C-alpha cells in the first residue's frame, strides 16, 4: 500500500475508534487522536521531501460521462499546505491536551479534531472537485461539532447552527459551480496539467464569443465537455459560483457573520479550524483552481473587491471589540480578505504565502489567547485583564511576537507576505493597494490595543491579579509557533510556493501584463510607516487606560449586520413560512396527499374488506389480473 494513504487513514481510524468506543475513555481517545496527528505530520514530512509519492488513485464513481477518483495531488502547492495543516494541527492537538485536561467529555473533543484532520487533509490532497467537495462538507461537519462542543450553552449551540447554515448557503453556490465546471470542461479534475489544458482550450477565440445558439447548449447537457460553445457569461457565472464556496468557508462578506460567533467553541478549535486552516481552505481552493478563475476578468474583479472590502470592513470592526477571541476572529476575517484580494488581483502565490505565515502567527495568537483565558479562569474580556505581562511572561512574549508578526513589522513573517500582497494589489489597481495599506494600519492599531489593554496597565479584576502560567504541554507549542512566526517569512516563499507557480504553466496566465517585480514607485517603507504609526498611536491611547478612549458604536455593533440579518430574516422567514404553509396545506396536503391518500385508502379498504378470510377475492383478483394482462398483451391492439 502507498504510504501516502496514511494521511487520510490515520485520522479516519482515530475518529472512528473514538466515535465507536473511545469517547468514554478520554485518555485513550487523546492517545489515538494525537497519535494519528503525529502520523499525519510525519507522513506529510515524508511527502514533502519526496520520499513518499502520490498513490495510484482508485476509481470511486464511474458512470458514463463522469469518472471520479479518490486520488491525491502532491505538488508544491499541496505539500506546503499539507505541512501547515498537519504541523499546526499537531501543535494544536498537543496544546489541547493541557487546555482540555479538565473537561469530562474531552474524548468527544479529540474525536472531532480527528474528523477535522481527516477532512482537511482530504481537501488539501483532493485531485478533483467532487472529492474536494466531499471533504469540504466534512470540515463543515467537524466545525459544526466543535463550535457546538459545549452544546449545553445556548450561545454555542446557536453559533454552531449559524456556521452550518451560512456554509450550507454558500455550498449550494459552490455545488452549482462544480456542476457548471463539469459541464463546461467535461472533467472535474483539478490536476494542474488538465487545468492548464482547459485554460489553453478556453482561451481560444471562439470560446469568448457569445453563445451562438441554445441548441448547442442543449446538446452540451448530454455531452459535457464541448467547451468551444460557451459564452464568457457562462464562464463568469461558473467562477462566481465556485467563489461562493470560498465566501462561505473563508467567511467573506456578506456571509462573514458565522466566524466571530464560532469563537464559542473551545479556543484550540478557534486556533486550528477558525483561524489557521479550515477558513483558509477557501483560499486554498481558489489557488488550486486558479487557471479556471483567470478565465473570467469580471469574476476576478469581483473576487478582488470582495476580499478587499472584507479586509478593511473586518479591521474596522476589530478596533472596537472587547472580547479577546472576537478581536482575533475579526482580524482573521480581515487577513482572509487580504488573501482573497491577492487571488483576485492575480497573485495566488502571494495568497498562499500569506496563508502560510498567517497560519503560524494566528494559531500562535489564538493559542496564547487560550493560555491567557486559561490563566484567568475563562475570562475573555480584555478590560478585565491588565498587568499580565510579568505574571505570565512566556504567554506574553509569544503573544507579543504573534502580534508583531500579524501587524507586519519587518522582519517578522507577516511583513513579507503582506508586502507581497500589497505589491500584487498595486499592479492590479492602486485603489486596492491603498485599502490594503489602511487595513495594515488598522491591524497594527487594534493588535496593539489588545496587547496594551490586556497585558499592561494595572490589573482590573481579582482574577487578573493572580494568574498562573500554563503547563509546558501548552507553552511548548506556543514557543514553536513563535519561532515560526519570526522566521516563517524568510524561506517559505522561495522554497515552497514560488516553485509551484513557476513549475506550472502559469506563464500563460501572466501574459496579460501583470508583472511580479515590485514597481519602482512603491516601497515597503510606506506600509511599514503606516504600521509603526498605528502601533505608536494605539500605544499612546491605550497603555494605562481604565476604559476605552474611543467610542464608536457603529463599529462596536459590527455595522449592525447581525441586527440587519436578524430582522430581515425574521420577516423573510415569516413570509416563507406563510408561503410554505399555504403550499403545504393546499397543494401538498389537499391535492397530492389527500388525493393519493383517497386513492390508496380506497385500495386499502378494498383489500381490508376481504381480509377476514375471504381468500376467494385474492384468488379472483389474481386470476382476473392474469386474464386481463393476457388479453391486453395478446389481443388488444
Amino acid at each position, binding site marked *: 500500500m502507498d504510504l501516502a494513504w496514511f494521511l487520510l487513514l490515520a485520522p479516519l481510524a482515530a475518529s472512528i475508534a473514538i466515535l465507536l468506543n473511545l469517547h468514554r475513555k478520554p485518555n485513550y481517545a487523546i492517545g489515538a487522536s494525537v497519535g494519528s496527528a503525529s502520523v499525519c505530520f510525519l507522513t506529510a514530512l515524508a511527502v514533502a521531501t519526496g520520499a513518499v509519492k502520490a498513490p495510484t488513485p482508485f476509481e470511486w*464513481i464511474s458512470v*458514463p460521462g463522469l469518472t471520479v477518483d479518490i486520488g491525491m495531488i502532491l505538488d508544491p502547492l499541496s505539500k506546503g499546505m499539507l505541512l501547515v495543516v498537519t504541523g499546526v494541527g499537531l501543535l494544536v492537538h498537543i496544546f489541547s491536551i493541557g487546555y482540555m485536561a479538565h473537561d469530562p467529555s474531552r474524548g468527544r473533543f479529540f474525536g472531532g479534531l480527528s474528523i477535522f484532520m481527516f477532512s482537511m487533509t482530504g481537501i488539501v490532497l483532493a485531485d478533483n472537485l467532487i472529492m474536494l467537495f466531499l471533504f469540504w462538507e466534512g470540515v463543515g461537519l467537524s466545525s459544526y461539532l466543535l463550535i457546538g462542543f459545549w452544546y449545553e450553552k445556548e450561545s454555542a449551540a446557536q453559533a454552531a447552527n449559524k456556521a452550518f447554515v451560512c456554509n450550507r448557503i454558500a455550498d449550494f453556490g459552490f455545488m452549482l459551480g462544480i456542476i457548471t465546471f463539469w459541464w463546461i470542461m467535461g472533467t472535474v479534475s483539478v490536476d494542474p496539467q488538465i487545468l492548464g489544458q482547459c485554460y489553453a482550450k478556453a482561451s481560444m477565440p471562439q470560446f469568448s464569443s457569445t453563445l451562438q445558439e441554445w441548441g448547442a447548449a442543449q446538446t452540451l447537457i448530454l455531452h459535457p465537455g464541448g467547451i468551444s460553445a460557451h459564452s464568457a457569461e457562462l464562464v463568469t457565472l461558473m467562477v462566481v459560483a465556485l467563489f461562493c464556496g470560498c465566501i462561505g468557508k473563508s467567511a467573506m462578506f456578506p456571509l462573514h457573520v458565522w466566524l466571530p460567533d464560532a469563537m464559542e467553541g473551545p479556543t484550540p478549535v478557534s486556533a486550528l479550524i477558525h483561524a489557521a486552516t479550515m477558513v483558509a481552505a477557501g483560499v486554498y481552493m481558489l489557488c488550486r483552481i486558479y487557471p479556471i478563475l483567470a478565465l473570467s476578468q469580471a469574476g476576478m474583479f469581483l473576487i478582488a473587491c470582495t476580499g478587499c472590502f472584507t479586509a478593511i470592513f473586518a479591521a474596522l470592526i476589530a478596533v472596537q471589540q472587547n472580547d479577546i477571541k472576537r478581536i482575533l476572529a475579526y482580524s482573521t476575517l480581515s487577513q482572509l480578505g487580504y488573501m482573497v484580494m491577492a487571488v483576485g488581483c492575480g497573485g495566488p502565490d502571494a495568497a498562499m504565502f500569506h496563508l502560510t505565515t498567517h497560519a503560524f502567527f494566528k494559531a500562535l495568537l489564538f493559542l496564547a489567547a487560550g493560555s491567557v483565558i486559561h490563566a484567568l479562569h475563562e475570562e475573555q474580556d480584555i478590560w478585565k485583564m491588565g498587568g499580565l505581562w510579568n505574571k505570565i511572561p512566556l504567554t506574553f512574549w509569544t503573544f507579543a511576537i504573534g502580534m508583531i508578526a500579524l501587524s507586519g513589522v519587518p522582519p517578522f513573517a507577516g511583513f513579507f507576505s503582506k508586502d507581497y500582497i500589497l505589491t500584487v494589489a498595486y499592479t492590479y489597481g492602486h485603489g486596492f493597494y491603498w485599502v490594503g495599506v489602511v487595513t495594515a494600519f488598522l491591524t497594527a492599531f487594534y493588535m496593539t490595543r489588545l496587547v496594551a489593554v490586556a497585558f499592561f496597565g494595572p490589573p482590573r479584576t481579582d482574577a487578573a491579579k493572580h494568574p498562573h502560567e500554563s503547563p509546558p504541554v501548552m507553552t511548548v507549542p506556543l514557543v514553536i509557533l513563535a519561532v515560526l512566526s519570526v522566521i516563517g517569512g524568510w524561506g517559505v516563499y522561495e522554497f515552497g510556493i514560488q516553485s509551484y507557480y513557476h513549475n506550472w504553466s502559469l506563464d500563460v496566465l501572466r501574459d496579460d501584463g501583470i508583472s511580479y517585480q515590485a514597481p519602482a514607485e512603491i516601497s515597503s517603507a510606506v506600509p511599514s510607516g503606516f504600521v509603526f504609526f498605528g502601533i505608536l498611536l494605539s500605544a499612546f491611547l491605550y497603555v494605562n487606560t481604565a476604559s476605552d478612549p474611543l467610542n464608536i458604536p457603529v463599529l462596536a455593533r459590527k455595522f449592525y449586520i447581525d441586527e440587519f440579518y436578524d430582522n430581515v430574516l425574521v420577516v423573510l422567514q415569516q413570509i416563507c413560512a406563510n408561503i410554505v404553509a399555504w403550499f403545504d396545506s393546499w397543494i401538498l396536503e389537499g391535492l397530492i396527499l389527500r388525493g393519493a*391518500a383517497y386513492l390508496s385508502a380506497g385500495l386499502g379498504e378494498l383489500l381490508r374488506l376481504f381480509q377476514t378470510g375471504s381468500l376467494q377475492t385474492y384468488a379472483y383478483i389474481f386470476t382476473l*389480473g392474469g386474464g386481463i394482462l*393476457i388479453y391486453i398483451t395478446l389481443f388488444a391492439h
Partner: protein
Amino acid sequence: MLSSAYVPYLAPEMLLTVWAMLLLLADAFLSLTPRAMAALSLAGILSATLLTLGFNTTPLLYWGGLCSWDGAAKFYHVFFLAVAALVTWMADDVQKPVRSGASEFIILPLFTTAGLMLLSSANDFMLLFVALELVTISFYILVAYQRRSVIALEAGVKYLILGALSSAFLVMGVAYIFGLTGTTLFTSTTPGVDSIANHFHNDFPVGVAFGLLLVLTGIGFKIAMVPFHSWAPDVYEGAPNSITAFLSVGSKAGGLIMLIRVVLGVFDHSTAAAIWIPALSIGAILSLILGNLAAIPQRNLKRLLGYSSIGHSGFILVAIIAASATLTGTAYTQSPNDLTGQVAVAAYLVTYLLATFTAFIVLAVLERRLPGLEIHHLAGLSQRSPLLAAAFALSLISMAGVPPMSGFIAKFYVVLVAWNKGLYTLLGFTIFAAVAALYYYLGPIKTMYWSEPLDEAPIRVERTTRHVLVILMILLVLTGFWAQSISILVHNAVIGKGVPAASAVAVNKEPRRKQRGIADSE
C-alpha cells in the same frame, strides 16, 4: 458438453440438502439446543458458500443440460447463501419467542436456499418448476410457523392457496410451451419457437405467447408484481420477521433470476419481446404506483414494508426490461465496465438485501416487546435506543433512495439504464414512484426522532445483534458512498456473459416486426 464431469457445480445444493436432512435426523435423536442447531446450520451455509466461491464463471451446461453455470448463477448462489445466513442467525438470535419446535424453523431455510440456488442455475422448465416448488413448499411452513397466532395462520393459508394457484398458472404455461416446441430445455426452446414461427408467416406463435404470459403470471406471484401481489401485505404481516425478510429478499430474488433466465435467456428476440416487454411494463408501472401509494396510509410497519416491497419489484422490473437486447438505444461499448440492466438488477438486490435485513432485524428486536408493531410505537425510539433508531432510519433512507445511501446508487442505475434504452414512459413512472415513496419512508423516521416516547424505558440490544446492525449500517453507507464497490461486486458476477442460451437467441432471421407497447412508445 453434457458431461457428468460438471457435477461439482451441483455440490453446494447437494451439500445443503444433505446437511439439512442430517440435521433433521440429529434433532430427532440428540437433544440439540436451537443455538447449536443454528451454529451447525450456519456451518453448512458457510461451507456451501466457500464451495461456490471456488467455482469460476465460465459459462457451461451441466447435469445433462438441465442446469447452466455462469456469472449470474454464481452471483445469485452467493446472494442466496448470504440471505440464508442472515435468516438463520435472526431465527435463533433475534426472535427468541419462535421457540416451539425451533429446530425445524432453523433447518427449513436450508431447503429453501437449496431450491433458490437451483432456480438460479436452472436451464429447463421442469427443473425450474421443481426448484420453485421446493422453495414455495418450505415457505408455506415457515410463514405459518407461529401457529398459535391467528394472523400467522391466515397468512399461511393465503400464501398456500395463492401459491398453489400461481404454480398452476406456471405449470400450465410450461405445458403450452412444451406442447408447441416439444422441449422443456431453455436452450432448445428458442430454436423450437423459431421453427414454428417459420410455419406461421414468421409471426410469434400465439400458443407460445400464451404460455409465456402464463409463466410470467406465475413468476409475478413470486416477486409480488401487481396484479399478483395481493398476498404480500398479509403474508408479510403474519410471518415471523426473519421469514418476512427471507420472502422479501430471497424469494423475490429467486423470482427475478427466474424471470431473467426466461425472458432474457429464452425469449429475448424481437417478436417475443413484443409480448413480454409490454406485459412486464404494465406490471412494472402498476407495481410502482400501487406499491408506493398504497404504502402511504399503512400504520402497521410490516404491511408498510410489504407494500414497499411491491414498489421495489416495480423498480427492478424496469431494469429487467432495460436489459433486453432487443431495445436499442445509446448502448455503451462492450467494455467490462458496461452498465447493463442485469447489473442494475443485481446492484439493486444487494442494496435491497442490506436495507431490508437491517429493517427487519430492528423490527424483530422491537416485536419481542410489542407484537403488531405500528408506526406510533416507534415514538421517541431515538432516545430509547439510538442504535435501533439509527439503523431503522438508515435502512428506510436507503430504501427511499436518498444519496449517499446505497439505495440511491441502485435507483440511479435503474434510471440510467432506462434512460439509455429510451424507456422514457417507464422512467417517468419510476421517478414519480421514487418521489412518492419518500413520504412514507420518512414518516417513521420523523416519529422515531421527533416524537415524545410513550415509554421512556431504554431498550437493550444484545451484543451480537448490535454488531450485526453496525456492520449492516456501515455497509449501507459504504456501498452508497463508494459506489464503485457495488459495481465491482456485481460486475464480475453478472457480466460474466451469463445465460449461455442468449447467444443462441441472437440469431433471429425474421424481418424485424415493429414492436408495440409502452416500452417503445417514444
